[in-house]
């Protein structure tokens, strides 16, 4: 089993990224070069089903989206904590099992709290 990390292992990822990046840049340049460009004032307006544009698109939006993003960060960090535990689950034994159950219990209390406070209530 490959348990030691070598920087060498990541070289193919770099190769993959270069291949993908090369493709993206080539196609973007190609479509820029061969496509026609016919601009006019009406076409340049943001699309709003044909009616005259009303105000700016970058207006304040529902705070709920922001709240979901914050909650995501919280929970994702907790999930990341669980990965090293899951990999070493067998070696950590019974003590590790109960410890992680306690951690998950706290996580569930947090989830119940945000649901009770209506943070995930959409209408």
């Amino acid at each position, binding site marked *: 089993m490959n348990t030691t990390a070598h920087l060498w292992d990541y070289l193919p990822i770099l190769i993959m990224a270069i291949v993908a990046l090369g*493709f993206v840049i080539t196609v973007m340049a*190609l479509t820029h070069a061969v496509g026609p460009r016919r601009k006019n004032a009406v076409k340049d307006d943001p699309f709003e089903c044909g009616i005259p544009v009303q105000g700016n698109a970058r207006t304040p939006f529902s705070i709920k989206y922001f709240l*979901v993003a914050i909650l995501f960060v919280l929970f994702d960090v907790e999930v990341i904590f669980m990965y090293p535990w*899951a990999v070493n689950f067998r070696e950590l034994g019974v003590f590790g099992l109960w410890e992680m159950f306690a951690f998950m219990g706290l996580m569930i209390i947090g989830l119940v709290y945000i649901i009770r406070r209506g943070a995930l209530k959409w209408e």
Partner: protein
Amino acid sequence: MDPIILYKIILAVVVFAVSLGVAAYMTWGERKLAAILQDRVGPDRAGPLGLLQPIADGLKMIFKEEFIPAQSNKWLFILGPSFFMLTACMTGAVVPWGSGLEIGGLYYPMQVTDINIGLLYLLGVVSIGVYGIMIGGWASNNKYAMLGALRASSQMISYEIAMGLSLIALVMTTGTLSLAEIARQQDEGLAYVVYQPLGFLIFLICAFAETNRAPFDLPESESELVGGFHTEYSSMKLGFFLFAEYINMFISSAVMATLYFGGYNFPFQHELGLEGNTLAIVQAVVLLLKIFIFIFIFMWVRWTLPRFRYDQLMNLGWKVLLPLALANIFITGLVMYFTGKLA
């Protein structure tokens, strides 16, 4: 040049080309399948059975007018789809496509790279993909695009948590994050779907949500948001957004097949009398077949189920899948404890 590096370069290009090719023909497959399910003929003009349709579509996308709205942020507008496509192409690097080839006494594993944090790499690259949609939707400076991007990002991050948690239960049983090792373990034992049926179901639902496929296609729901985050896009930039979705579908099918359905392994593979390279090639074909079955399910669901409402989507992610995934970890832990798998 070192033959290993040369091989890695060739393999990276091949994996990339196969992802693109399969994704291109998935667009054809989707239209054909939709046609069959709706009692129509589907594309049949370009070539026999319409088989040249993806090539015609691709060429058309390239030759279409490249339109950048006057009020948009030009560079971010271009960056959005490029980024989305780039991340979609990079996920294939850690999927093992077969056991390995032996050429001239050297052993070449059929995997671009076997990093020991393969699963974390996958989750990481998938979550970077959100930025592509977010940047593209915001840069458009269009209300529909803005709403679509907001929906897409909050949907994708919400389901990422349940996805990460469903994988934890799997990692508990495998004890490794390397995809090659997980595939190898399933050669010796049973496919992991037998041990993790609930985990697989959660992962499948999250994969639908992460790829923005119906019934989770709220970010681009054409009946309310015109085109969602790609309303203002045209030419190959639109093509990238649509195309990357198919690549994501292909890769997530490959990941599901590898993690839960034995990967490139198939039953009785060592009793058939196949050796070395022949076996490796047969394995790659078997993996592709498994992937096609998953892709078929993706398409079947799209043409069967209606779209969720936004509050239903959020409730499913946070109040159903998240507790279910935690319960799955709990059950997995207890079962392993009582069956004496712990040290």
